[in-house]
């Protein structure tokens, strides 16, 4: 587990979102519970984001987490990473 706190984890998730999420808004303007799909996260960008998260944390998203809900917010993404690390 590379991240000691959820804040660190959120920061990394946000960084990857900035690089791969192709959002229409500044990631800093979103709370950890704001809807990422509404912010413009497409299914294409989800795939890139997931690959980036898998690489960053050396994890694999199992089938059951490959759903829209997992990618709906920073909080959901951090929870998923926490569960897998």
């Amino acid at each position: 587990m590379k991240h000691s706190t959820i804040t660190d984890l959120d920061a990394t998730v946000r960084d990857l979102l900035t690089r791969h999420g192709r959002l229409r808004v500044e990631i800093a303007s979103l709370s950890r519970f704001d809807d990422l799909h509404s912010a413009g996260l497409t299914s294409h960008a989800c795939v890139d984001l997931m690959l980036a998260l898998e690489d960053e944390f050396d994890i694999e998203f199992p089938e059951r987490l490959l759903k829209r809900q997992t990618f709906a917010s920073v909080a959901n993404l951090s929870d998923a990473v926490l569960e897998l690390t």
Partner: protein
Amino acid sequence: MPTTLIDPSALATIGARRPLVDVAQTVGAEFAAVHGADVDRHARFPSEAIEALRRERALGALIPISLGGRGASLREVAIVGETLARSCASTAMVYAMHQIQVNCIVRHGRTPFLLEVLADAAAHERLFASATTEAGVGGAVRASVCAVDPIPDQPQRFRIEKQASVISYGEYAHAILATARRAPESAAGDQSLVYVPRDKTTLELTSEWDTFGFRGTCSNGFVLRAEGDRHQILPDAYADISTQTMLPTSHVVWSHLWLGLATEAVSRARAYLRAQARKTLGTRPTSAVAVAALVARLAEMRELVHGAARDYELIADDPEQLNRIGFAIRANNLKISASNMVVEIVTEAMSAIGMSAYREDSPYSIGRLLRDAHGAKAMIHNDRILGANAQWLLVAKEEL
């Protein structure tokens, strides 16, 4: 909501309705087959066959019995499309596209207003069309330029203006289901599905439909302009409606329709073979082996298409399963495989029959079937669908 209760008199008329299978065969033989060539030649709406389906109460088939429909399954209406396609692909396509819209409302329209829409559709056998494609998004249906635009000072009212590059039979429909961004500030993929009745909509013609096949679907382009109340917006996000209903339903009803085209082509090849055999008693006609191969290939296609419909039915009420990547990939596979198979089978049938199939004035003619079959690959192009699957495969893990 009195219309949502079971009305005993409605149940009595349901008993009097002919089974859908019979309806499809009769309308196919007596209307679609009779007018199919004229519909194709003049690229006109197949009004005789659609009216006949309306009289037989087949348009509202998917609507629950409690709302006045037949409460038929998707597989049953898909078989109607398969049967109709043997006589007129355009009639079958109008029927199929209509059922896709109905299924979206049946499965995602649980508000009082939308239940009333269904009850009205069942009572009057309304025809519904679709406006999902739009100029400016490169053929993608999961992105919109237009938005549900609130009317200032009228919080319950909205307007939509959509450059709809295709609205099949839009001028003949009672209402249209249009995709649009949820709000003016929404992202391209953050879409809603909106029910817009034709009498509250203007359609400004921008392009006409003069095509190789499916000529009678009258899939003209329009600028769609509509105003309405917010209760016309389906409550579920279009992302969910698309994944759980619109895409799988489309692939199921379309693949059945293509199966009907392939079945008709093979049926003509078999009839030709029997006629040849009578003329060359004692010698097997040269085409017999090719026809045997065709029959085997058709059986393969039928199993694929009917099996996919069964699979969808099994998980149709389980959003968790429907939202899985594996389901999306399999639904896409159905479209790709069935559309390739129909072109292959119809082409081989033409080759097996030979000159009599190539002629337009022969009972074994294959020309129109072949033109219609090619539409299967072009509508939502196979390369686009393979591209979507390719993207999913970068992350999918389950057995496929």
